[in-house]
């Protein structure tokens, strides 16, 4: 553990005599690397895929990415504390079903949306209470609620689909800003991203999450209330997942029990790809933003190339595994480079003394 931690520090100054150890600089950190990969990939896609660099692509790509990006925000914070939430896609599905049934039952569209959000809130509270206050492992709880909430969605709406949502609202959900191709919905989504970014990086609450992710004991000793922090994270996760479910419903003009199913895999893959450690304690919102965009544009590019959905899921799974392995590989490489350097230095010294 400590080995890999020390091995990742900048090795360029090794043995140079100065004992100056700095943390990773902003342009060499894991999140920066993600941004580079994203840029390189986008350039490659623009050049090689004919229809990629158009406003239409931008629009569809961003619309596709919005649910992932939304849910990735609370997920980032949850994984940083060393927990996980697998029920997010099911909450989105449940909120979609509730929205559909309410609307079909004659309720006002805004009331229907509010109730769908409220159901997401309740789902988050349910997860939060079991994990934060009863103290059950989040993996077990959210695997359970993954099935439970999806099941409830099926109970609520059955095999039906509700599609007759008001035109002006569904059109608004996928409308673009002028001729840029950028969806209007990007604006509220960016507000959510900035909110979670500030919460994680700039508040006492966020500091506490990192501390908890590294060492629960140490966090406890400085008065961080682990249970309360976790509870609010799961509540936030429930709310945001429900919003994603509402967006999904309106964008595809279809409320179904299986909406957004399997999305948790994409979200978690994107978060881990963005540099968040599955073991907790490490990660940043900018990195995750890059991770989400990378996985989104990769999927989109593959789809443009007429690659089937099965392959897309396979690629997502591979990326997930790669992002978990990547830190170990990079630390192994830097250890190896350091050893090489040391060996060279020693042989240089040997020749120097021989010459003298």
């Amino acid at each position, binding site marked *: 553990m*400590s*080995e890999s*931690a*020390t*091995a990742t*520090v*900048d*090795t360029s*100054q*090794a*043995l*140079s005599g*100065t*004992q*100056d*150890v*700095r*943390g990773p600089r902003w342009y060499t950190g894991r999140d920066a690397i993600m941004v580079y990969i994203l840029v390189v990939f986008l350039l490659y896609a623009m050049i090689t895929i004919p229809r990629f660099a158009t406003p239409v692509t931008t629009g569809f790509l961003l619309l596709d990415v919005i649910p992932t990006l939304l849910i990735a925000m609370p997920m980032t914070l949850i994984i940083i504390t060393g927990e996980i939430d697998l029920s997010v896609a099911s909450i989105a599905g449940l909120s979609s079903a509730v929205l559909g049934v309410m609307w079909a039952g004659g309720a006002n569209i805004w009331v229907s949306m509010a109730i769908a959000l409220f159901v997401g809130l309740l789902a988050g509270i349910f997860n939060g209470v079991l994990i934060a206050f009863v103290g059950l492992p989040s993996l077990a709880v959210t695997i359970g609620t993954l099935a439970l909430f999806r099941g409830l969605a099926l109970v609520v709406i059955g095999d039906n689909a509700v599609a007759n949502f008001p035109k002006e609202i569904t059109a608004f959900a996928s409308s673009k800003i002028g001729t840029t191709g950028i969806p209007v919905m990007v604006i509220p989504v960016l507000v959510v991203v900035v909110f979670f970014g*500030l919460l994680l990086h*700039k*508040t*006492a609450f*966020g*500091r*506490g999450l*990192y*501390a908890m992710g*590294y*060492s629960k*004991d*140490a*966090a*406890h*000793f*400085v*008065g*961080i*209330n682990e249970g309360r922090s976790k509870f609010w994270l799961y509540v936030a996760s429930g709310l945001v997942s429900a919003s994603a479910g509402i967006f999904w419903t309106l964008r595809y003009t279809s409320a179904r029990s299986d909406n957004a199913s399997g999305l948790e895999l994409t979200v978690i893959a994107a978060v881990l790809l963005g540099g968040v450690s599955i073991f907790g*304690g*490490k990660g940043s919102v900018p990195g995750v933003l890059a991770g989400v965009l990378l996985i989104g544009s990769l999927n989109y590019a593959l789809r443009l190339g007429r690659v089937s959905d099965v392959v897309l899921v396979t690629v997502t799974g591979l990326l997930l595994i790669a992002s978990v392995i990547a830190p170990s590989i990079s630390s192994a490489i*830097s250890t190896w480079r*350091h*050893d090489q350097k*040391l060996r060279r230095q*020693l042989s240089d010294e040997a020749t120097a003394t021989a010459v003298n």
Partner: protein
Amino acid sequence: MQHSTVYENALALSLHGAMKTFGPVVALADGTIELRAGEIMALCGENGAGKSTLVKILAGVHAPDTGEFIVAGQHCSFKSVADSKAMGVSVIYQEPTLFPDLSVAENIFIGRQPKNRLGLIDHGRMRKNAATLFERLGVPMDPARRAEGLSIADQQLIEIAKAISLDAKILVMDEPTAALSGVEVDRLFKVARSLRDAGAAILFISHRFNEVMDLSNRITVMRDGRYIDTHLTRDVTVERIVRDMVGRDVDTLFPKTEAALGETVLAVDKLGRKGVFSNISFEVRAGEIVALAGLVGAGRTEVARAIFGIDKRDAGSVTVAGKALPPGNPQAAITSGIGFVPEDRRKQGLVMDLSVARNTALTLRHKFSRFGLIDGRAEKRTAATWSRKLQVKTSSMDQAVSTLSGGNQQKVVLAKWLATEPKVLIIDEPTRGIDVGTKSEVHRLINELAGHGMAILMISSELPEVLGMADRVLVMHEGLITAQLDRNEATPESVMYAATASQEKNS
């Protein structure tokens, strides 16, 4: 066995000029040690002197970058712990990690359990073999018992039994006595001596000089990652060893200064926690250092945890400067002015992977918030100020605390609590595992804080520290306070008496 002849005994292990670096950090510059069969070699050095790295090289955890390593006449380069075990080297750590759900015997023979004809584990034979091992060690232990709940001392003995069963010729004990009570230390030493007399080579690491002088045949001293010297124990004085360790003379270990006592700051009344401690009442005044003494397991740390709110209390009250503290709420304790330097700085005191600045500022994360957002520069400034005040040796505020030496880590823990400007500071084992130089620095600091009117509650297992530092000594035994001794009443005898003889209390 003639111990004067250890120099002629067969060389069991030798390591010369071993170097080990982690990135830019040189953990070991010249690791050199020679162990001969049938001797106990003590290894002394301040924290950061490279002892742990040397042990990890012997254990096969780290491979040295350079150096000559010979075990039993063979050149070695251990790639893993299994390699070192195969060459007969076993390491007993300060806190062994046994599998709590397995029996004692299963822990000893894990991975190489004796099998019966069907290929299943032969439990009967395994237990009998384990019992034989404990007989050889001369300690009674039930091999069928589950490992859960065993004392650290017993766990170490299981590790030693395991080492013997692996036919270990070389035993490395890395600060085995740090968490042991007096009787347990005696038992461990008896076992160590009998192993030595049977021809084993033992490397013993300890910060306690009386143990080193009592047990070892030779003493090797390290400083700043380098080998300094090896002495025959009977020819050397503690002063000489200390001089080798610090590179200078340490004159006074406990520079006690009398501070003027003020108002009562911390008042604890009839505090109780079921099955752990009960009826704990005492006060600490401003400028006063009160020591909580007693054997390991007497309930001292538990009392401190309940005061601070890490654990809930079942009875009694805690008052800080006249204000009652709610139970089980560390944040409230911090706000009302208590600081708590816990005993395990790696797990409880610090978030090891976070930077010096983040760690120092963790207690003040609310104070640095403007409209909910943390002012990063103010945070760093405060951390830098306190690091300078406490002379934390770090190259930058962004350095991860895991790369600092033990003494410097302890200073960061102190810094993070002092930065909250507490009225009461609870310090649990302030100098455990800290080198001599930093030790007296920490002692001077505690005195200084008391001099400035801070109320200090110190838990310590080191009697000289208790007697040297405290204005008043509270002695605990089995969850009760058995004596309150003023500075002039506190002697090694009176404290140890109260710590062991609970029946005799104030009849």
